[in-house]
């Protein structure tokens, strides 16, 4: 029996007890702060040996080697280059200390650098770094591996792949979760479990960060989806400062008392992390001895994951939508962007499809002339960080799929395998190696069978072959393979029959590439939506479709209710129940004049309607001047008052100001003959001072002043004093408004004021910006305005007062 089978057999019979903390034990026994623990342990092997043997005597079944940081990156910081030797020696020390009846776990901790896409370390480099450590530990005779305290799922994957590519030994992976129940990078426990167990981890769990009470909840969350044993290594409570020492204050008895609950919630491997000592492990062992472990509740799980989310393909749950947006077929702009290596559009499509309730994202980057592998890797790295949705890797190239699976920080769905012999023989082992799920297209080397009968035979053959790689019906989703009804009127029904047979008789999950059905037809959205409803009635699990099509998503919501796939119709009700506030109803019911509408448009910042409303008002006989002075200026004044009272905030103020601006521009031709309407309050030169590139506040002030009748000369940002002097001379403006965001650039305001005054130009100054205060403005001889609304009042006051 090999080492892996031995550990698995042990786990069938009993709970395995792990050791407790190593770091805090070493500190207690004299390891100074700031040293490299691995080097110190080699130099003081009797101390670490004693820690190991104390844990053995306490009843630990597994002892971790003291190699948490024994990787190339961390050891390199202490000048150690022979990583293999260091790991081998530390494994020897552990073995020597505990003998052969207790298992030695080769301990692998994080490198201190994140792996792409979350960090700068190339994935393959990370795998190589871990492989070096794995080799040393394997040479040192460890019985199993533990990858622990991981906060980056991609780093955990790299370490797991490294172990798997070097040895077949039993490997546990434990992540560390923050108070919010996620790793620092946002991975939740179920997602980590789905990703790691599918990639080949033999046990998955959590360690450090929390005490036992909190960790029990994490274990309970994972258990329903676990196909492997679960591991927990909690701290001895949370750290507290007592006197002059930080202590984990949970006594061994209290710590051990959680043992039974851990087991009842499904843990199979249990130990202690920071603050636990041999006494904690002794008490824990006593507490749980004789208790039977709960085996994993399932052999397989139909679920995919991203780095931050899991989607479980459960029966009787709502019909899932795979967003088809990231596919350049027929999308010229996306094709061009991908060819140029740009990702902006991909990012926007992905986020938008997620917002529109896609459950997964199909990713296809096939464009003629493109480096598909490189582009796919780029898109996966991008989407892993900008979208929470699990990805469907859609490519006809096995090389591209392999590259994607290796890099993807979750459990992916491959689109697709077929019954084609060569493809099948390559894709099945590849998917098995990375634990991916598969979409099966029921076609083979003879082509696409026209009837459902022919497709069923292929489906059965492929599933039979897939069983050789330990795939189950949970792992493969059958595509009904719908063709265009425009070329074959039977196509839709044959695909539906395939879906129904899979759902009912064969009992596997199903999918349709929905939009194929309507190809070549006008108004395709109706055919797509109707077909979705028909397929949902036959038990369809998911559809590849565009979630941005409102009609389709509405029909989907309706079919979920009618098919009893939306409990209490909660999703449907949330989608369609929109409450209109009472006051809005009142407004809608009451007939108002165009002028009143224009007032409301400015008040509510409704830029879209203002021109048509003003046009209507003019048609009904209102003069442009009257609309400006009696409607729009009172409206924007009210907006200013609401802003002052904080009943409006900045976006509302600006939306109103922009509406006003648009309205004034529309009325401008009608005002040309009206002198009273044309009257300007004065001219303002406005600029962000030299050295400062922040200009959004200045732009707001310019907009507000412009709306209130000031003639604005906006010189932009990073403007030197000479340019301002020149413009004041040329325009004869009455006011110079200056903005600065930083203390370092604020001082340039005074230089500008001095420069203008040296030229004996008659004008006043206004100053504002994040760091500018009234006292500073006073000190340089400028008026102060804290925001755009106040700037209008200040400017109006200036022109009614003496020059400052």
């Amino acid at each position, binding site marked *: 029996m090999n080492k892996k089978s031995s550990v698995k057999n042990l786990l069938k019979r009993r709970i395995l007890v792990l050791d407790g903390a190593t770091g805090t034990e070493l500190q207690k026994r004299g390891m100074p702060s700031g040293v490299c623990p691995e080097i110190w342990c080699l130099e003081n092997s009797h101390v670490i040996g004693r820690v190991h043997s104390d844990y053995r005597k306490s009843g630990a079944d597994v002892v971790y080697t003291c190699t948490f940081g024994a990787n190339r990156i961390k050891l390199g910081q202490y000048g150690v280059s022979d990583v293999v030797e260091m790991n081998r020696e530390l494994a020897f020390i552990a073995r020597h200390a505990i003998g052969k009846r207790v298992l030695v776990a080769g301990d692998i901790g994080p490198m201190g650098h994140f792996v792409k896409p979350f960090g*700068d370390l190339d994935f393959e480099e990370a795998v190589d770094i871990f492989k070096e450590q794995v080799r040393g530990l394997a040479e040192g005779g460890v019985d199993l591996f533990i990858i622990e305290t991981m906060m980056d799922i991609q780093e955990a994957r790299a370490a797991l792949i490294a172990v798997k590519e070097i040895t077949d030994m039993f490997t546990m992976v434990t992540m560390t979760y923050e108070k919010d129940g996620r790793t620092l990078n946002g991975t939740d426990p179920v997602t980590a479990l789905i990703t790691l167990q599918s990639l080949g981890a033999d046990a998955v769990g959590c360690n450090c960060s929390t005490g036992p009470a909190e960790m029990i909840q994490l274990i309970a969350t994972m258990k329903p989806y676990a196909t492997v044993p679960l591991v927990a290594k909690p701290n001895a409570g949370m750290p507290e400062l007592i006197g002059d020492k930080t202590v984990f204050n949970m006594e061994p008895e209290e710590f051990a008392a959680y043992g039974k609950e851990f087991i009842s919630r499904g843990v199979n491997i249990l130990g202690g992390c920071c603050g636990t000592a041999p006494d904690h492990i002794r008490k824990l062992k006593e507490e749980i001895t004789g208790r039977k472990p709960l085996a994993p509740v399932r052999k397989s799980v139909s679920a995919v994951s991203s780095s931050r989310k899991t989607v479980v393909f459960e029966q009787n749950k709502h019909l899932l939508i795979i967003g088809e947006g990231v596919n350049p077929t027929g999308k010229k702009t996306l094709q061009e962007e991908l060819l140029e290596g740009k990702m902006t559009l991909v990012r926007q499509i992905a986020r938008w499809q997620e917002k529109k309730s896609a459950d997964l994202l199909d990713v296809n980057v096939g464009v003629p002339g493109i480096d598909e592998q490189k582009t796919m890797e780029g898109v996966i790295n991008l989407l892993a960080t900008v979208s929470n949705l699990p990805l469907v890797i859609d490519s006809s190239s096995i090389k591209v799929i392999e590259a994607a699976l290796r890099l993807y920080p979750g459990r992916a769905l491959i689109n697709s395998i077929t019954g084609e012999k060569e493809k099948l023989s390559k894709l099945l082992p590849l998917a098995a190696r990375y634990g991916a799920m598969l979409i099966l297209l029921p076609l083979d080397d003879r082509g696409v069978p026209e009837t459902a009968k022919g497709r069923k035979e292929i489906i059965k053959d492929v599933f039979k072959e897939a069983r050789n790689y330990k795939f189950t019906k949970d792992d493969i989703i059958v595509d009904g393979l719908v063709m265009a009804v425009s070329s074959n009127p039977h196509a839709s029904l044959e695909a539906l029959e395939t879906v129904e047979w899979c759902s009912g008789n064969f009992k596997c999950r199903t999918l349709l590439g929905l939009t194929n059905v309507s190809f070549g037809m006008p108004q395709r959205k109706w055919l797509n939506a109707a077909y979705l409803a028909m397929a949902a009635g036959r038990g369809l699990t998911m559809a590849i479709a565009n979630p941005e099509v409102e009609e389709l998503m509405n029909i989907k919501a309706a079919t979920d209710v009618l098919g009893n796939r939306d409990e209490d119709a909660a999703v449907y009700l949330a989608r369609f129940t929109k409450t209109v506030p009472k006051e809005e109803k009142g407004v809608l019911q009451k007939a108002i004049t165009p002028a009143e509408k224009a007032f409301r448009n400015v008040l509510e910042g409704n830029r879209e309607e203002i021109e048509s409303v003003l046009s209507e008002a003019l048609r009904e006989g209102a003069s442009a001047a009257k609309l400006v002075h009696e409607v729009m200026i009172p409206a924007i004044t009210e907006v200013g008052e609401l802003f002052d009272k904080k009943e409006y905030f900045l976006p509302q103020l600006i939306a109103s100001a922009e509406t006003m601006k648009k309205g004034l521009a529309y009325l401008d031709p009608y005002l040309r003959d009206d002198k009273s309407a044309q009257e300007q309050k004065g001219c303002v030169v406005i600029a962000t001072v030299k050295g*400062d590139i922040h200009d959004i506040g200045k732009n707001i002030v310019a907009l507000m002043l412009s709306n209130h009748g000031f003639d604005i000369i906006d010189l932009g940002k990073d403007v030197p004093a000479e340019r301002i002097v020149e413009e004041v001379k040329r325009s004869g403006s009455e006011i110079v408004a200056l903005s600065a965001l930083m203390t370092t650039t604020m001082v340039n305001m005074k230089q500008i004021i001095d420069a203008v005054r040296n030229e004996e130009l008659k004008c006043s100054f206004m100053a504002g910006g994040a760091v500018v205060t009234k006292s500073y403005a006073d000190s340089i001889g400028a008026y102060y305005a804290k925001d755009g609304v106040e700037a209008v009042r200040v400017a109006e006051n200036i022109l009614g007062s003496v020059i400052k």
Partner: protein
Amino acid sequence: MKSVVFFDSINISVPRREIFSRLGYRKGITRIGKDQKEVIEGYIEYALSLIHLRGAGRRISIKEKSFSNIVLSNGVVFESKNLSKMIGDCEEIILMGATAGDDVIESIREDTEANQLTRGVVLDAVASEMVDASLDWIVDYFNRELRRENKRLTKSRFSAGYGDFILENQKKIYDVLEFERIGVKINENYILMPEKSVTAVAGIQSRFSDAKRESESE
């Protein structure tokens, strides 16, 4: 001196409360109509599709320090009484920085030119708060790393351009962090570009000495 740790993509929860607060929203006072809220949420979503948070951090030991300056092991000198006071008895510091990337800044510029200032202002606020929150995330990351050494970062952090820690120091931090590797530039006025980029300094202390010092300062 340890090498720079780069974070090529920082994932954080969107700090909505801070974004709205930055835009002047006051709970219980500010009134937003449903349509307006949807529009603003749409702008926030658009901003998020443009923001790519990246960061860097580096742990460096302090070679010498006095009440008015700090000499790092790599020879970099920070002259600042305020910073020295904050660093206290720390023997090491963390230099850190983060950026929201170019795309969002470019979009703000385009919006401003196209008289879409409302969206530009929301993009600006989202980018500012996201980049601040990403520094908090970097602090959490280093605290996680330091926990095993029974250490943590000082609760305060200091940025160049504040108090007597003059903006010129931004260039020193920029160089030490190899900030150009995450697409950030610095101009002759020591301003980081893209605009929504920040740097900061925090001290590394043992949990005990940090708590003691903080209670003393109270």
